[in-house]
């Protein structure tokens, strides 16, 4: 085992705490000394839980969460619309809050739990059916961003007023102008959830 050489050593062995000058040296060390253990993760590794599934990815410092979710994980529920944090179409729920994935660096999300519109749908959340029923969509490009933003609202406020819904969704742009339908759809989903809870 190599002895640590100085204070600035960056790579530390997770199995014996030995420190190394480079990640390559650490990897070699683990291969030789700790056969049978998984290789350590290189810098830039983030772990994300997306729709209850665990992911471990290598990201560049400038990689956005949108790029990871859309381009790497293949989830189309994040949409590139305004391309600069104006429209809410790339919104995902991160640890309970709706955030703009196009304005969030993936490297800052290590360990985060993330939910996309696909996750909301797969979990059978009533928002999806109430959105369909109320035609709260036209071209549909902005719809997943509304769904995640509305889901985050209902998670923290199960009994919102129309004004609460309008305020929560006020940052989501819809060029087709579906706006009047969203409060109707969200309030109906809230009602369904309330009935489910009271059962």
């Amino acid at each position, binding site marked *: 085992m190599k002895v640590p050489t100085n204070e600035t050593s960056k790579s530390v062995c997770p199995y014996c705490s030995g420190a190394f000058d480079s990640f390559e040296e650490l990897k070699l060390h683990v291969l030789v000394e700790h056969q049978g253990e998984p290789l350590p993760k290189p810098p830039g590794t983030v772990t994300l839980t997306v729709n209850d599934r665990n992911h471990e990815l290598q990201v560049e410092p*400038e990689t956005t969460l949108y790029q990871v979710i*859309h*381009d790497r994980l*293949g*989830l*189309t*529920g*994040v*949409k*590139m*619309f*305004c*391309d*600069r944090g*104006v*429209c809410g*179409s790339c919104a995902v729920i991160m640890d309970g809050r709706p955030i703009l994935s196009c304005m969030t660096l993936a490297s800052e999300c290590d360990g985060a739990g993330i939910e*996309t*519109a*696909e996750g*909301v*749908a*797969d979990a059978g959340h009533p*928002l*999806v059916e109430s*959105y*369909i*029923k109320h*035609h*709260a*969509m*036209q*071209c*549909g*490009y*902005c*719809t*997943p961003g509304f*769904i995640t933003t509305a889901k985050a609202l209902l998670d923290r406020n199960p009994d919102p007023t129309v004004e609460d819904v*309008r*305020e929560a*969704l*006020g*940052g*989501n*742009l*819809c*060029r*087709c*102008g*579906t*706006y*009047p*339908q*969203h409060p109707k759809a969200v309030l109906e989903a809230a009602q369904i959830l309330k009935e489910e809870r009271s059962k």
Partner: protein
Amino acid sequence: MTDKKLGPYQTIKSEGTYKIGLDKPTIDFKAIGKRGVRRYDGYDKASGKAVYTRDVNLPGMLFAKALASPYPRAKIVRLDTAKAEAYPGVRGILRFDDPEIWGMELTGSVAGTTRMAPESAGWAMLPEKRILSDEAVFEGQMVGAAVCADTEQIASDALKLMDIQWEQKPFVLDQEEALTPEAPKLIPGSDSNQIIDGRELNQHGDVQKGFQEADTIIEFSARRDAHLWAGAELPCVIAKWSGDKLEMWVHEQQPYLNKSILAEQLSIPMNKIHTYSLYQGCSFGERCNPSNWHQNGINVMAVLLARKTQRPVKLMLNRAETFYGESGDVMTSYFKIGAKKDGTITAVEMKNIFANYMCTTGVEHLVDNTRIKNLRCEGITAHVNKPPAWWCRCEQLPNVFCQTMIFDHVADALGLDPTEVALINDGCEGHDKSFLVEFKRKNGFPERDSLVECVETGRKAIKWEENWHPPGTKKLPNGRMHGIAFTWSHDWDDTRGTGSAAVMIQNDGSVSIIAQHSDVGVNPWTAYMQIVADELGVRYEDIEINPFDLNVGFALMSPDGSCNMVSNGFVVKKAARKARTMLLDLASEKFNLPAEELDVKDSVIFEKAHPENRMPIRDVVRVALPMLNAVAIWTEPPVFDWAWHTHGLWGMALETGRPRMCRQVNFLEIEVDTDTGEIFITNVVNVNDVGKAISPESVEGQMYGGTYMGLGRALTEEMVWDPKTGVLLNRNLLDYKYATMLDYPEPECLYLETGLGHGPYGATGIGENTATMIPGLLGPAVYNAIGVRVDDFPITPDKVLKALGKI
């Protein structure tokens, strides 16, 4: 003339050509017109699982980007791409002087056989027509070179490494300034910036005579600045070659035209261009005509780069790059109107000066809708160094803008109720309403007065009697001035569409509609399925459509011209009727009865005289089940038939003698803060006579959706250029503001179903009407509030304060 039996081609053509007259239903409506039909695209869209072109990533795909001109008018005198070529990750560069693109021009419609004036077809309106040229005529134009690389980032970085020497040239931004002698001349070899397109003068009757008949003459001017589509999904295209076969994924309203244009430009046989057109994140005309300057340009560039690199190439625009176009209603308007005391308009003379493209001269709705006999409209178009203009939900903007302005000024000048001035002038092509009554009678349409019904409905909803007041007279308790206004026109009956589709019954009795169709959000597929359900006699749930694949050979009318339902409704209706005939023919074998004695409803075939003698479609078509061990396809002919329908071609609606009979009215209530100039929208009432609502929720969706777009255009949507540099200053959605949920109240949307449309079951269009009507209506509302005219759109607070003399 001897009766000659039509051959197969002429039969299809004859069956498919719209014959004037009400399309009376021959079936009971079950799915048609019903609320609560589950929308076909709903789950895909709400779950985020709908795939749009921009979502598609192919193995080995490269990303392309093009250089954008930083100047409004400039020529590249030197371009060194060596550094960019050497940059790691760069896989191919297309330069303006490469032989495969040098001199290639943006073409008009189909293979030179466009119905439009050659000058107005496609982007021929630009003085510089080359794709990836060395000359730019507006800031942001894609010029010089395009690069493709392993990532978007590398492609962007490589563009920065290009060494470019520009020669800047003098430019002009304003259309009226462009027409002055001292303006720089933009058209090579011409001493004028005026674009000649053959539509400069639209004249009916004798305006001088009309002015002599008038009791009063009204003169004024108005102005509209540029706005644009700003659709949700950013324009993009993917091209992939395999040998001589080209596959394309296009975000386009008219993917078939993309094929024909590419075939013409690059000599690729149309049958080798395999095209997919997935969900479309808005369009509004932006992704409409492939002759649209950049759209055609990006397709050509992607195809050439993909051929060069032998890799799939995706060319995506970012938001800033999408500000490459503007609406075709950038105009300065001058009006002179003659009217009698009772509100009868005797003559309208107007001059509209447009920038870069004239959608319509501005007088057409007065022709379509009124009995005004004397009309004279000059439509002048000037080249300016701004992006090309094009239809922008929709090409009727200049027409309804002028109609709103004219009627409001006339009513005000005469001190009359504007709703009454509308009624007194209602008519068609200079004729009074007796002409329309006669037409309705002759062609089987109901004898209802659409405008009267719309006006009555709208007046009641907005409480017109108690709310309307003379201009500048109603101060509210909150200190603001109250304004209310009214406008009207016909409901769009452009209906100049053509499409084809097949209906097929699968082995298990389920039904497929086979046809490509680019949806832009108007919920069309649900409506087509509703029609097929009722016409074929099957349950809505038993029908499926796969509209994404152009390679199936059938294509429905693209969503422009409000033609979706009016044309395509007929297509699927006819295909379903033909498939039904075939189905009953097959069933006659099973029932051992003539087909005429059978009927089909709810996916069950039965004997009309003895309905208990019945069999599900599934059991009837089962005779055609494939023998799985022997062959993989039909051993007996499948129940399958197709239909084609045309409602006419562009520019031909009136010529075919089809007056518009469905009317619409719009009311707007506002409050104006005279200290800040702010305008607050408090109430919107839209009443549309849609003839027949096939999908009621979709009709309403277009009405409230269009209201938000219209209000944005009226109040905030404006492209702002720096006059000194010619640079567009607000090319993003923070600074180009359109409506959010918080900006305006929910509009009240009411529709009538008089059956007065030329579409299936008497339907008419609805997709474009509200967004087009609302913007101009703000002018009359502001005038009614403050008593001073601000006919300069969009009406921003600074303009209000200026009109009030406060700044």
